[in-house]
């Protein structure tokens, strides 16, 4: 068998993997990247990017539809309709442009991309096959291996994917809009897609086992989202468990907190209960790496328990965020090139692209209290922000958490239309170790949603100007 040799072998061409490869190549490391599907991973192909495209299209259609009635803006639209096939083609076009762009970047930097599925042979060797039937694998050896295989969608044991039961991947490429959609899981994926389908015209019911939607975020922050779901007509069944499909296969059996069972008629059931590290089916178990639950255990340099085997991104567990994987990948490439690096961010911001959007960075008031920090918390509502009024979206607020003793900011949260873009300012102030006075003394452009950031800080200091 022919053996190809390289210095760095990256398994997986998602955001973590391709960034590792590009950065390594920039540093002069001979790099081979193995990807079985399209480059770009979950993020570009079936995650972040296509979902945002669909959210945008659904919102545009929703607005047009809204203008068919009485509009305070004085706009009137007749006969708004959507060609969902064209919408999906438009989305696929964006995905193709981005994945093609990743391919071009890898090529430009001299990364060798091998198309196929990698199977681990040992800590320095993988076999790459084109498909299941391929009996002539290509063997590749690298001094370093970066495992970046990402995560897979978690299915429900009693309700496997297939037929009416679809995953988020399928939900992003619909042939038609289902009349009735049941979404299992009230986390960010379920809500983002549930809202898309609602805005495209489906009757949507979200079933969540816990007692509120977005259970991983604090209640105050999720209230505007819950209110918006109500206003848009998304049914939400909290404290309920999905038992499976009924015998006819056209409804979902749900048991509520009191133990009462009911059926929810469904043309389609979207299961969005989370993602798990992609650890099976590619020989990872042969390395016998130390694990952290279902994830590969890593240290603050993304080293696994085996020398020169590194793991990044979703494979290493929560938070499963593309920007975390990318930062880890960049760091691993630099360590391999001989630099001293550690993964020590002050914060990794997380965003829900629901309507309204939710963003968190650093510690929440609850986190800070748990950590024994004496903190000041202050929030500023968008209802008092001029730009928010002109956007017809005054729901939500910006909240800051800072230490009482030295005023250093330890966390930010925001909910409202378009607040995802505020994450930049949040992360920046946290990484720089900014104090309340630093942000208070920074002139924020008017009229922007960002003014609410400065006002929240002024409020924490006891002298907000616009409230």
């Amino acid at each position, binding site marked *: 068998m022919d053996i190809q040799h390289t210095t760095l072998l990256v398994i997986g061409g998602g955001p973590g993997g391709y960034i590792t490869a590009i950065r390594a190549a920039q540093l002069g490391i001979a790099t081979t990247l193995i990807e079985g599907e399209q480059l770009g991973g979950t993020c570009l192909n079936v995650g972040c990017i296509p979902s945002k495209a669909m959210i945008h299209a659904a919102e545009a259609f929703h607005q047009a539809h809204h203008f068919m009635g009485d509009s305070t803006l004085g706009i009137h639209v007749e006969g708004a309709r959507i060609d969902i096939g064209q919408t999906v083609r438009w989305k696929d076009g964006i995905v193709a442009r981005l994945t093609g762009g990743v391919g071009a970047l890898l090529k430009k930097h001299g990364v060798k991309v091998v198309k196929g599925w990698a199977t681990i042979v040992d800590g320095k060797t993988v076999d790459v096959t084109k498909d299941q039937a391929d009996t002539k694998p290509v063997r590749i050896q690298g001094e370093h291996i970066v495992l970046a295989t990402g995560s897979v969608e978690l299915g429900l044991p009693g309700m496997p994917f297939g037929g009416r039961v679809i995953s988020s991947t399928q939900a992003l490429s619909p042939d038609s809009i289902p009349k009735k959609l049941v979404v299992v899981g009230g986390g960010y994926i379920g809500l983002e897609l549930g809202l898309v389908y609602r805005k495209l015209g489906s009757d949507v019911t979200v079933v969540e086992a816990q007692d509120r939607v977005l259970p991983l975020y604090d209640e105050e922050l999720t209230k505007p989202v819950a209110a918006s779901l109500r206003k848009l007509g998304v049914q939400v069944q909290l404290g309920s468990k999905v038992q499976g499909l009924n015998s006819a296969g056209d409804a979902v059996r749900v048991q509520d907190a009191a133990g009462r069972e009911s059926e929810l008629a469904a043309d389609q059931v979207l299961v969005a209960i989370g993602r798990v590290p992609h650890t099976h089916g590619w020989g990872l178990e042969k390395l016998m790496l130390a694990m952290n639950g279902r994830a590969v255990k890593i240290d*603050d340099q993304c080293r696994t328990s085996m020398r020169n085997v590194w793991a990044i991104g979703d494979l290493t567990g929560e938070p499963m965020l593309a920007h975390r994987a990318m930062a880890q990948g960049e760091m691993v490439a630099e360590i391999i090139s001989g*630099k*001293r*690096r*550690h993964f*020590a961010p002050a914060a990794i911001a997380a965003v829900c692209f629901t309507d309204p959007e939710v963003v968190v960075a650093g510690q929440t008031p609850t986190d800070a209290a748990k950590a024994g920090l004496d903190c000041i918390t202050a929030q500023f509502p968008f209802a008092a922000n001029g730009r928010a009024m002109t956007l017809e979206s005054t729901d939500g607020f910006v909240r800051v958490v800072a*230490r009482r003793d*030295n*005023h*250093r900011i330890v966390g930010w949260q925001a909910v409202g239309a378009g607040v995802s873009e505020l994450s930049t300012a949040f992360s920046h102030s946290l*990484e*720089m*170790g900014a*104090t309340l*006075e*630093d942000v208070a003394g920074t002139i924020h452009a008017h009229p922007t949603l960002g003014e609410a950031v400065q006002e929240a800080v002024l409020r924490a200091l006891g002298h907000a100007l616009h409230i």
Partner: protein
Amino acid sequence: MGIHIIKMPDIGEGIAEVELVAWHVKVGDMVAEDQILADVMTDKATVEIPSSVAGKVLALGGAVGQVMAVGSEVIRIEVEGAGNLKPGATNAAPAAAAPVSAPAGAPATPTATAASVSSSARSNEQTPAHGEQTPVRAEPVEALRPAQGERKSGSATASNGAAPARHGNGNGKAPAALVRAPGDKPIASPSVRRQAWDLGVELQFVPGTGTAGRITHEDLQAYVARAAQAQPAGVADQRYAQRLDEQTIPVIGLRRKIAQKMQEAKRRIPHFTYVEEVDMTELEALRVKLNAQHGKERGRLTVLPFLARAMVLAVRSHPEVNARYDDEAAVETRFGAVHLGIATQTQGGLMVPVIRHAETLDLWACAAEVLRLSEAARSGKATRDELTGSTITITSLGALGGIVSTPVINHPEVAIVGVNRMVERPMVRNGVFVARQMMNLSSSFDHRVVDGMNAAEFVQRIRGYLECPATLFVE
């Protein structure tokens, strides 16, 4: 703050214990990742022990010269984060460290324990590599708890204001910086963090003067500058300064072995030294010619392979010098084989790698073997077999050979041939002065088993071969 323990690594080849020959750090020092902590020596080689973490040295696991078991505790380092030693689950603490660390001005270091090295090695076996600590026997755990607590409170103060000042070569100017509570992460912008990593500086020890204790680029630079600051400026004219300093250098490791060996040789063997001059002109002409002709593909020849060959031939008629003398059993063993010891200077001291069966090697094979062995000895990679078993030895200092030397016999051998400097000298041949390449051989013999006559004949034979090099190849 956690404590990280580095254990004596398994050096391989079935070695169970090693001698600690040097510490490169002391208690209270800051160490960086990959910094060399200590040197240890097996009977074959010296090995460096690097640090796998960065932090402050809390305790050393042994004194220089001590023999330590593989797996025993080498050092304790206070690190940021958890470390690999969980509080309360501590094992037999800094075993033999107490005598070293206690007087070293670290009042917070626990002095409670006096467990032997072997017992600490045993308890280390119970606690696998990365410290998922299995609880150890109950008594020592209980006994240690107070000490552990004491250290914790002590390190809290030490690692804030005091540590940088002490680290700065004791110039004691700690800047007025905000004190971080223990366990608080140092606050610094990403660019400062990156620079600190590049410099190998742990930010937790850098005082932050920025708002809310932020560490600025200036703080980092000041910290590095303080750490690197040299001794205070000296007196007016350093050239004539009175010097009162003295250095005590423990004779340990290879140096101790050399000392023992030399003492043994001189104590047991009544040496006599015989010096003869050799006209090397013809041999040099041959050597230069061979090097010009074959130097590229076969490697360059020095005088040594010629001398080795001359000795191989000379011992055939003088087997009494190619021998080992066991004076306790009163037996001299003469060898047919010539295992030629080559005295070699290494960084650690004198070593004598051995050319096995020198009688089987031609000039180039011999030259290659000399090169290989001297490199192995110098890099500490020579195996035990390559360092023992010689039957006669050559010692040469090359250009530094001087005109006469009195070599010490490599006990229990009975002869050693020393090579002095080769130099062009005016000689009288047939009544006229001619310039000749002259070189002295200074050879020592064990007078108990080698008579002066035999020694002289042996050296004259060597001289004969060297002065008429053709005879080297016809016999």
